[in-house]
């Protein structure tokens, strides 16, 4: 095909490709999709909990008296005559009403009282009182069915009927005169009472949102709506109050905004830096224009392919993908350096360099493929993105770029120091090689000192301010710790419930021992059929004629109706089945505690303040149950990622070596080609070991990338297709500069992942570039 038609086809297809991408692409901002692996069951569980868990979707709100105080409207001036705490309560009540009207709010309630739906749900358990009155029916029977206490229980019932909760108690008492069904809910009542007794000086509210915790866009809108509702009310109250928020969505929105900033910053700085380096080298806007179009087409093709394969593209893939522009620019740069220096037409230069370019591209793809296999889900996307972008860039450089550059004039800048360094290496090769050998030996000795990072939290963003706010808000709540719980697994729901009940019995003991402050289990919302049968048996045995007579006597003494309350009925025929419970509004109450998977069912029991070690020990021996810590799980994942990334580093290097061997058919050349990159990895590990840097799997991944890039330098230097090593080394220098420009931009990111990758890759390519002329003997011209 003629140059004219190649150019026309490119100019026609590029906008079409761009349009297809815009139409097809769905950018995902959910951090969970990028960071949490889904290749083992625990990871999937963690992922599911983060995505939709009830606790993860909750906001903890605290309204406190602020420092400012302006006179408000008449109503508020009246309210100001109320005692301070009543004024705060009145304001919170209005806020609850206003917040409940926001579309993304499922419900909102004061932390010291259960939501109305819970109270209504409790009433539906009255017919099952004989099957659900206790977790330990045998043990509790002596207290619950003590005939001697029936007189006082009848009197208590009377008082309850005449109290403000009389309507609620009456509805239960007509079906369950002994109020046995309320016995199981006592713990829940105590938890709310503890919250009421906290007296923290603020009004604590819980807001259950509808969007998943990590749907940052939805939560950003919701948080703005919450603030706006509060501000409107507070303004009319004379700005006397202030609002604080905490919860997983607060962190996810903050993280999202940081990542958004990073994506923009990295993309802009990386593009500008690569452009400047390019202009500095070739001083041609025309060439810049065409090369950028080639890179843009490669980027769009990579994005489109990723979107088609995964169904979405993560915003972090785009950010890290932007750094690929710097790598892909290497291929046109090598062609252009040869064109400029030797005055070759671009097509001849592309043909001449094609074997080296193809091999260089292949090794880079191998590096990214190894990256994709490290188990870090986000990198799978980046690997696919790299495969298509690099392939597109290579193909366009070989077949389209010469047509685009046909009329461009290139000026190749002479980079100071490049020839001098190559010359210095040539002149002092023996001495420098001895130095290098000593360095290698010393580096090996330092490796045992290498410190591995075990705490994945160190890779998280620095959110100290939000963490402090979170701690301040949580101080107002007698709360459950969202990241730690007891996990119960089984093949079926009945077994899972039995195991969960065994855990709850153990937790009661641990609570009595002071190891645990409180817990949220599933009983009595859900109970196994076995426990229901035990309850029914104990109940039936306890309803002796003497017991019934004592109850009736108690009712008479209290002045209560014998007709309506005197008949204690036998247990209801069938058990309360989980499917019945889960078809009722109770499913919302339990939604964060039940996860159904392919391999069975998992139940979570939420924990209050506790001693992790003693609690984990306390659960020993319980089948299917274990203490689950989100932090421990993430740390374990970090360890797995690190081991796998080290393995992939080794496998990646081996496969690159294999491909180079297939091309070069000379083992010495293979070793020499790989040596600069492998040696730089060794030196970087040694430097980190000496500096005491904690090395994470991200550091290793960065080095893997740097190897895949440095091997290209070795290939070009070894091949020396232009038979002019100065030109080849200038080409390598130019591509090192663009790589540094693009990966260096990652260092500006606040997400710790990005600076780590920037440091590893930049160090790796710089050392690799410097070692090339030393380790690979200058080929004869």
């Amino acid at each position, binding site marked *: 095909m003629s140059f004219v038609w190649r150019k026309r086809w490119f100019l026609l297809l590029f906008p079409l490709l761009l349009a297809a991408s815009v139409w097809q692409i769905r950018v995902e901002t959910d951090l969970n999709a990028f960071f949490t692996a889904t290749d083992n069951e625990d990871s999937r569980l963690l992922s599911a909990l983060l995505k939709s868990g009830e606790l993860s979707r909750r906001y903890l709100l605290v309204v406190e008296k602020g420092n400012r105080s302006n006179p408000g409207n008449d109503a508020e001036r009246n309210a100001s005559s109320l005692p301070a*705490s009543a004024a705060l*309560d009145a304001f919170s*009540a209005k806020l609850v*009403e206003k917040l409940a009207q926001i579309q993304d709010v499922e419900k909102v309630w*004061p932390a010291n009282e259960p939501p109305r739906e819970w109270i*209504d749900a409790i009433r539906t358990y009255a017919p099952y009182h004989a099957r659900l009155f206790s977790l330990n029916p045998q043990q509790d029977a002596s207290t619950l069915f003590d005939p001697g206490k029936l007189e006082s229980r009848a009197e208590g019932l009377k008082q309850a*009927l005449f109290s403000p909760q009389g309507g*609620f108690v009456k509805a239960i008492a*007509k079906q369950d005169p002994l109020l046995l069904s309320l016995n199981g809910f006592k713990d829940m009542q105590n938890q709310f009472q503890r919250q009421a007794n906290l007296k923290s000086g603020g009004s604590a509210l819980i807001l259950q949102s509808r969007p998943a915790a990590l749907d940052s866009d939805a939560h950003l809108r919701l948080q703005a709506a919450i603030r706006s509702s509060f501000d409107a009310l507070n303004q009319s109250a004379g700005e006397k109050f202030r609002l604080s928020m905490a919860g997983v969505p607060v962190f996810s929105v903050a993280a999202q905004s940081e990542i958004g900033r990073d994506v923009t910053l990295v993309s802009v700085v990386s593009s500008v830096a690569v452009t400047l380096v390019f202009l500095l080298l070739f001083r041609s806007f025309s060439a810049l224009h065409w090369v950028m179009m080639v890179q843009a087409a490669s980027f769009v093709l990579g994005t489109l392919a990723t979107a088609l394969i995964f169904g979405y593209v993560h915003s972090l893939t785009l950010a890290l993908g932007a750094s690929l522009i710097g790598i892909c620019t290497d291929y046109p740069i090598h062609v252009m350096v040869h064109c400029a220096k030797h005055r070759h037409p671009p097509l001849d230069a592309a043909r001449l360099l094609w074997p080296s370019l193809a091999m260089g591209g292949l090794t880079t793809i191998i590096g990214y493929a190894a990256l994709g296999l490290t188990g870090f889900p986000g990198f799978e996307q980046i690997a696919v993105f790299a495969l298509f972008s690099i392939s597109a860039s290579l193909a366009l450089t070989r077949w389209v770029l010469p047509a685009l550059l046909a009329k461009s004039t290139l000026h190749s800048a002479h980079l100071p120091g490049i020839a001098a360094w190559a010359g210095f290496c040539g002149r002092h090769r023996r001495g420098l090689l001895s130095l290098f050998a000593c360095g290698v030996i010393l580096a090996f000795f330092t490796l045992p000192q290498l410190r591995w990072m075990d705490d994945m939290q160190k890779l998280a963003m620095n959110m100290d301010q939000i963490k402090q706010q979170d701690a301040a808000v949580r101080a107002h709540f007698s709360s459950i710790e969202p990241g730690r719980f007891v996990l119960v697994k089984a093949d079926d729901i009945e077994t899972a419930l039995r195991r969960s009940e065994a855990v709850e019995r153990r937790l009661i003991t641990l609570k009595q021992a002071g190891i645990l402050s409180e817990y949220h289990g599933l009983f009595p919302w859900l109970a196994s059929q076995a426990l229901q049968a035990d309850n029914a048996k104990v109940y039936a045995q306890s309803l002796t004629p003497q017991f019934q007579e004592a109850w009736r006597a108690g009712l008479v003494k209290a002045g209560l109706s014998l007709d309506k309350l005197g008949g204690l009925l036998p247990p209801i025929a069938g058990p309360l089945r989980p499917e019945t419970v889960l078809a009722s509004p109770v499913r919302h109450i339990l939604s964060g505690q039940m996860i159904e998977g392919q391999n069975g069912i998992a139940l979570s029991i939420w924990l209050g303040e506790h001693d992790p070690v003693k609690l984990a020990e306390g659960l020993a021996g319980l089948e299917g149950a274990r203490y689950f810590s989100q932090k421990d799980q993430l740390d374990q994942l970090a360890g797995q990622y690190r081991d796998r990334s080290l393995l992939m580093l080794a496998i990646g290097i081996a496969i690159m070596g294999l491909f180079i061997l297939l091309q070069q058919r000379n083992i010495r050349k293979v070793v020499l080609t790989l040596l600069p990159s492998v040696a730089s990895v060794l030196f970087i590990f040694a430097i980190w070991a000496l500096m005491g840097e904690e090395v994470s799997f991200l550091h290793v991944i960065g080095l893997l990338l740097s190897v895949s890039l440095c091997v290209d330098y070795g290939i070009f230097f070894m091949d020396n297709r232009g038979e002019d090593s100065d030109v080849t080394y200038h080409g390598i220098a130019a591509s090192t500069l663009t790589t540094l420009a693009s990966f260096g931009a990652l260092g500006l990111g606040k997400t710790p992942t990005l600076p780590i990758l920037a440091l590893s890759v930049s160090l790796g390519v710089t050392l690799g570039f410097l070692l090339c002329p030393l380790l690979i003997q200058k080929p004869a011209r």
Partner: protein
Amino acid sequence: MKYGLWLLLALWPVAGLANEPGLAELLGRIRHNGSAEFSYQETRKLELATSPWSGRGMMLSGVDGSLIKLQLQPMRVIMVITGQRMYYWDPEQKQRHSGLIGQAGAAGEEITLFRFIIQGHTEHLQSTYDFTHQIRGKAWHLRMTPKPGLNDENAPTIEISGDEDNTKRQVLIRQADGESTEYQMVKTAEGPEVEKSIRRLLLEAIGD
């Protein structure tokens, strides 16, 4: 002829109101806007209790719409309704509760209704209740029955009666299931002193 018929139809509702002379005046009379204190005697008949229960105490109504029921017999209990919240304090049992009226379900609806009735804010009930009244000499009687077709089957019937100078009042709330509560109230004080008492009792109920 057509014009005359149209005029008759248009004026029909006005003609209907004209059949209830004094209702608007009566509704205005029973409404409390200022602070007032009443002594009360309460008699409750419950479906599950064999005999009526009686209690006595003070009822205090504030300018801002707060209502305090201070039960003195058979035991001292304070119940406060202020804004959208309710506070309950039983010193003998040492039980203290507080909560949003809107979160309390049926109990919350009863409390809201109770406040409207005691403070005479019957305008809030006009959409759900039919009003009939009688005035005989100095005595008056107002009966409110749930409108037919109302979704709430448990809505109670309410009867309020009193005298001309509005110092004595009887309120009878009869539930759909037959339970009833009757209050005999006598106004004992009004003005700023009542507000002070309201504040004091509110603080006690909150526990400050």
